[in-house]
């Protein structure tokens, strides 16, 4: 009995040490969630968090043509850390922004670097927007930049240190005509003139909760999902919501899929919604098995949703009916948005596995990458 008493504090200490070990282990390092970019010529896929692979057109398999940074090249100072926005491909050039805080322009043909722009005050977690010869994006330290697509220099007319925002910017910048729309993690949405970065609205549109994503869903209509579980449609003419926000059950952090003035999105509880862009009213469409971070897509009348439990679910949007759910392997999870090419849907997991979903057959297959990272 007395030995038990003596051992008591020791046992308590061991249990506490075990608890502390458990408490200290899980740290979420940046992994990136750039969605693939697929065309008839080939596919740009992040097979690993810090390396872009250009693949042959994905059929039964796909082969690596080149990687950036070049995996054969050792001792390089190139470090992407992670990439969150899909690569932007225009006029044979691939534009890419990294969490490390660099923007790159690469030759699409062989992946050779054309220019690199750093010193951006923070990393980039959103998509690059392209308009009028400039790339526009925000950084995690709250700067909005417009840089020349030809050489990465500051766009003329913009402040040399970018436009300083009050809070970090994690969302991609949305662009329409002469204006760039920028959302901050402080819950503000700003409209900036593409000419020089000055504010267009008299005051920013403010929501309760961070805005981690942003999308133009129609002319003059901005999709603003707040992490406080409310989604707004904002009229870009005046920076005001067209209706009170549509409430979700959990966080909404994605780009919606658009079809016939309707926006489809899902929340972190796995609920899928349809939002009328004209009225700002949302209704529930259905639910999936797990949290959804990956942006869904619509092909024909089929909505495709990939959840964090690696399931791909097909909905008929006309009948608001779930058609099928297909588990997609066991490698990583879906955080990156889905992309459509030739009526087929492509998805990449956090472990770099590439999947193709066929909305007509309601099937999902993995596409092996030959000569890939695995």
């Amino acid at each position, binding site marked *: 009995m007395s030995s038990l008493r003596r051992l008591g*504090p020791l046992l*308590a*200490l061991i249990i*506490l040490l*075990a*608890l*502390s070990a*458990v*408490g*200290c282990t899980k*740290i*979420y*390092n*940046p*992994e990136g*969630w750039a969605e693939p970019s697929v065309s008839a010529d080939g596919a740009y896929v992040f097979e690993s968090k810090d390396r872009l692979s250009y693949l042959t057109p994905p059929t039964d398999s796909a082969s690596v043509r080149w990687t950036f940074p070049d995996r054969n090249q050792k001792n390089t100072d190139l470090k992407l850390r*992670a990439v*969150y926005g899909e690569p932007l491909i225009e006029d044979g050039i691939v534009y890419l922004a990294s*969490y490390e805080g660099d923007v790159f322009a690469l030759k699409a043909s062989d992946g050779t670097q054309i220019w690199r722009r750093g010193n951006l005050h923070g990393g980039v*977690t959103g998509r690059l927007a392209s308009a009028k010869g400039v790339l526009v994006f925000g950084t995690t330290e709250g700067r909005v930049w417009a840089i020349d697509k030809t050489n990465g220099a500051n766009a003329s007319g913009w402040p040399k240190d970018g436009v300083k925002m009050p809070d*970090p910017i*994690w969302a991609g910048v949305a662009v329409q005509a002469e204006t760039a729309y920028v959302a901050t*993690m402080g*819950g503000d949405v700003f409209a900036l003139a593409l000419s020089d970065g000055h504010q267009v609205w008299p005051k920013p549109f403010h929501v*309760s*909760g*961070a805005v*981690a994503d942003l999308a133009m869903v129609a002319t003059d209509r901005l999709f603003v999902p707040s*992490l*406080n*579980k409310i989604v707004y449609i904002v009229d870009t003419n005046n920076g005001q919501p067209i209706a009170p926000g549509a409430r979700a059950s*959990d*966080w909404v*952090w994605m780009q919606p899929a658009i079809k016939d003035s309707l926006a489809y999105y899902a929340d*972190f509880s796995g609920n899928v919604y349809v939002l009328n862009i004209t009225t700002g009213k949302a209704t529930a469409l259905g639910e999936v098995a797990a*949290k959804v*971070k990956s942006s869904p897509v619509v092909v024909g009348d089929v909505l495709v949703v990939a959840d964090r439990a690696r399931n791909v679910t097909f909905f008929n949007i006309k009948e608001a009916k779930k058609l099928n759910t297909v588990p997609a392997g066991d490698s990583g999870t879906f*955080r990156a948005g889905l992309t459509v090419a030739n009526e087929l849907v492509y998805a990449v997991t956090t472990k770099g596995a590439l999947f193709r979903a066929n909305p007509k057959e309601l099937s999902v297959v993995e596409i092996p990458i030959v000569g890939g990272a695995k």
Partner: protein
Amino acid sequence: MIGDIFRIALADPMVNFLVILNNLCFNSFGLAIIAFTVIVKAATFPLTLRQLHSTRSMQSLQPRIQEIQKKYTDPKRRQEETMRAYKEAGANPLGCLGPMLIQFPIFIALFYAIRLVLPESPEALENLSSHLYGWSYIQHAVPMKTHFLGLDLRQTPNDAGFVSIEGFLVLLVGITTWAQTKTTVTSPTMDDKQRAQQQMIAVMMPVMFAFFALSFPSGVSIYWIVNSVMGIATNVVTFGLPRFNIKPLVKVRANTPPPLDAGHATSPAGPTIPARELRTANGPGRSKRQNRRRRP
């Protein structure tokens, strides 16, 4: 399993509590950490008080312990008598461990909570959603402001570099831990060996914690510093600072041990008379209730 218990019982409530404090503290997460420290210190004050009682009792027992050491040559017997003396005086040599053991999981959970609440990556923010309660009051606060008095509360001195405000925190962790150890009362009747041990602890503890602080997010270091400063204040109020002629502001009751001969009519060879029989009133270190329990 243990991870789930840790998360549900400790880490998640702490995460949400910190977010609420952040909202109450003008959306300053640094102030929220300070408020949290004060609350934890207040909540564990009964334990601290018990520790102080225990320390005082130990202190007052020292003459008797020395007497026992002189009187008994057999180590086993000496230990038995020492333990008996502690027991009768209501002093627990491990009493000081109570507040420390409580601090430990809180400290670890805070470390965990700060990494969660102040996410360093989009994935970490995404993960935070599953730890927050569904109340709008909590949800709208995310993400917290990561800076406080020029400090990035997420950053470790290892990442920020030693010549930085975060690096300065390491120094403060060392100094405040040292000051707390120095203001903790020590017995004037300690022998040289005990004194040497005490001095070694007084040096090792600050060095060890300063070393740990190199890998702490600076928010955790703030907790440690504020906690130590409050510990120093408690020590000064309770024990005073004899070196600077500062007298204690409050008196902590110490149980008076009975003298060796009165409390123990024992001889190294003879039978032991139970101490209970020799006690007056409730007996040293015992309440009326405790005595009632012992009665048949």
